[in-house]
């Protein structure tokens, strides 16, 4: 009797094991994992929710497991997931970090998929950045230009207009920085420059001044071009702004946007994502947007969508369905109305978008201005080393501020170090 029971248990266990193995491919396709840092972001988070909803409606039986990972921990989390052999099937990455994943062969080449589906990517804004080693590793989700949010009431109180160049910018931020309650501490600032939140964020802020001075990190062939008079001028401008006291110090990006939305800052230059935050703040009635005082504006690629290469064919087909929905004319149109951002699709119908996004034409203008100037936040030739490069630049610029170094010396140091990083 004991042996009968043992045999029964063994048979049951074996059956369970086999049925589990047999069911594995089917059950794997029941759920697709999608990790993103944008889940709770106003506007774009709602857009993602709509893409997911449409996908699930079109593919009954398949659900999307949508998980939020904070931006600060995003690259490490994704690296760990991929290295551990458990990648999310739907891959969402920043455009400055996808290169390392593509270089490791973790992203599916999308060229055959687009060819089979007869989808052309001609005219898709910023799509060239998604080409890695001659293959399409991803789809560009956002190619943007920076805008400037400003507090009309603060500027009007000083009889000022929004600045249109660097000199006017300095004048405006000087006159609008004030100690309103007389406690000896400024509580209203002319602008807010983000210096906390990581090297990538630091470089993006610095790039406003570098580009306006006519400098670039590298040229179109990937040669480092940091030891130039234009770069020295850009660094000098950055030093002037930080040392002026017209910006609060040690501010992270979220805090900076919040300060503008709360009416404690006269103006802030930022990406299209600034507007939804401004619109929900207590000072919303006084806040307006216009083109930034820097020319060309900072802009370029933001984030990309791809497919993990080490998943089953069935899962790949489903992920491509998801990508197609995100790229569909309907969802691209909603990228403007729901996410308040410029859709990369050249055929997106944006008629009537101004009703929901009044500054939409401004977004188009700054996007085109950045594109026409060939601006991108990721320097050509340093894509894979971007993490190390951005940290090096941030540290050398911090050293310039702390030790009051000559920008010319700093530019020369950065040139040498960037070349060393590029050379491996």
């Amino acid at each position, binding site marked *: 009797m004991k042996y009968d029971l043992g045999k029964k248990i063994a048979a049951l266990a074996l059956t369970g094991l086999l049925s589990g193995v047999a069911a594995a491919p089917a059950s794997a396709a029941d759920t697709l994992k999608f990790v993103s840092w944008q889940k709770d972001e106003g506007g774009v988070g709602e857009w993602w929710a709509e893409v997911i909803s449409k996908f699930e409606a079109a593919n009954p039986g398949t659900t999307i497991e949508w998980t939020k990972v904070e931006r600060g921990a995003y690259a490490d989390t994704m690296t760990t997931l991929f290295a551990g052999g458990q990648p999310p099937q739907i891959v969402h990455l920043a455009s400055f970090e996808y290169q390392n994943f593509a270089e490791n062969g973790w992203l599916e080449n999308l060229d055959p998929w687009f060819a089979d589906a007869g989808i052309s990517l001609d005219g898709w804004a910023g799509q060239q950045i998604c080409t890695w080693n001659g293959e399409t590793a991803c789809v560009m989700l956002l190619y943007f230009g920076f805008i400037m949010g400003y507090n009309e009431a603060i500027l009007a109180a000083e009889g000022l207009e929004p600045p249109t160049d660097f000199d006017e910018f300095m004048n405006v931020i000087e006159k609008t920085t004030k100690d309103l309650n007389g406690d*000896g501490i400024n509580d209203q600032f002319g602008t807010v420059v983000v210096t906390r939140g*990581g090297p990538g964020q630091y470089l993006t802020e610095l790039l406003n001044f570098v580009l306006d001075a006519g400098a670039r990190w590298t040229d179109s062939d990937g040669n480092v071009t940091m030891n130039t008079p234009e770069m020295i001028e850009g660094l000098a401008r950055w030093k002037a702004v930080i040392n002026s006291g017209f910006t609060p110090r040690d501010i992270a990006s979220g805090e900076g946007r919040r300060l503008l939305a709360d009416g404690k800052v006269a103006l802030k230059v930022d990406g299209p994502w600034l507007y939804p935050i401004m619109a929900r703040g207590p000072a919303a009635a006084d806040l307006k947007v216009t083109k930034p005082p820097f020319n060309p504006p900072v802009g370029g690629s933001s984030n990309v969508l791809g497919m993990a290469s080490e998943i089953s064919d069935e899962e790949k087909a489903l992920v491509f369905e998801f990508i197609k929905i995100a790229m569909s004319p309907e969802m691209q149109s909603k990228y403007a109305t729901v996410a308040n951002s410029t859709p990369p699709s050249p055929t997106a119908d944006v008629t009537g978008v101004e009703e929901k996004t009044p500054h939409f034409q401004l977004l188009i203008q700054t996007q085109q201005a950045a594109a026409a100037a060939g601006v991108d936040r990721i320097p050509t030739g340093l894509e894979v080393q971007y*993490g190390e490069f951005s940290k090096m630049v941030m540290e050398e610029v911090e050293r310039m501020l702390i030790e009051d170094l000559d920008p010319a010396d700093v530019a020369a140091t950065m040139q040498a170090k960037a070349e060393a990083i590029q050379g491996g």
Partner: protein
Amino acid sequence: MAIPRSQSGTTWFGLARPSRRHWLGYILLAPAVILVAVIIIYPLVVSVDLSFQKVGIARLDVARKPFTLANYEKLFLSPEFWKSCWITLKLVVTVTLLSMIVGLATALLVNNQFRGRTMARLFVALPWAVPEVIAVVIFSRFLDSSFGLINWLFITLGVTDELWGWFSDPTLAFWSIVMTMVWKGYPFISIMVLAGLQSIPVDFYNAAKVDGAGVWQRFRYITVPVLMPVLGVVTILVMLWVFRDFAIIKVLTDGGPIKSTQTLAILTYDQAFGFFNFGYASAVGVITLLICFIASYLMLGRQTKSMY
């Protein structure tokens, strides 16, 4: 539940036989040992192995790269590594010393009889209960260079007439981390020392008083020697905590500015997840482990002698 028996009547594996009775101990220990091996020893072995390879992003499902000492050569020739060692040492010594002083002082305080002692003990232990990241956020707000409470207090009290850049000045950034770590770490010392203090018989102090010993002499010749075993163990635990702590530094300063707060833990993280140099990061990790091991061994050895 009945133990299955063979036909001869002995238990399975012959555990009842005197020569095999010790097997039971091994069998009972096995799950714990296997668990430890899987979650500690295996990653450790992988790390050591990776440190001898030139690896970008580590993967376990690809062939091993050729053996090389390049990571260690680069490490020992790198000024950044030695600077991180120096910062780690500075931080370990400063935080451990200050935490010990504050922890010992608060333990001595709440060991006395006074009204509200229970509440005082609660307040002393409170920082220990606060999650590390929450503590960092609190200090981050206090020390905010433009809107923080500390700068406002300093200006209001006339300590300074300008805002201090707590996270943009290398010296202040270091002390920001020290303050946060001491605040977070001293309650552990306080609780442990308090337990030690309560185990000291009152007779010792009474006898010392009869012999004319003052407060300082009683502290120096009774309290400290009896507490030494506790203080020794606590010192090692606090040192190891400071040595490997990551969250406080990462959230507060991220190792900056200009690497002034970059400890070995931050260096390891940056190399692995910032620059995707897993081989080099593993080499830093292995050296960190060796330093921790040697420091613990020396401290434990010294402590054992001082106890008796």
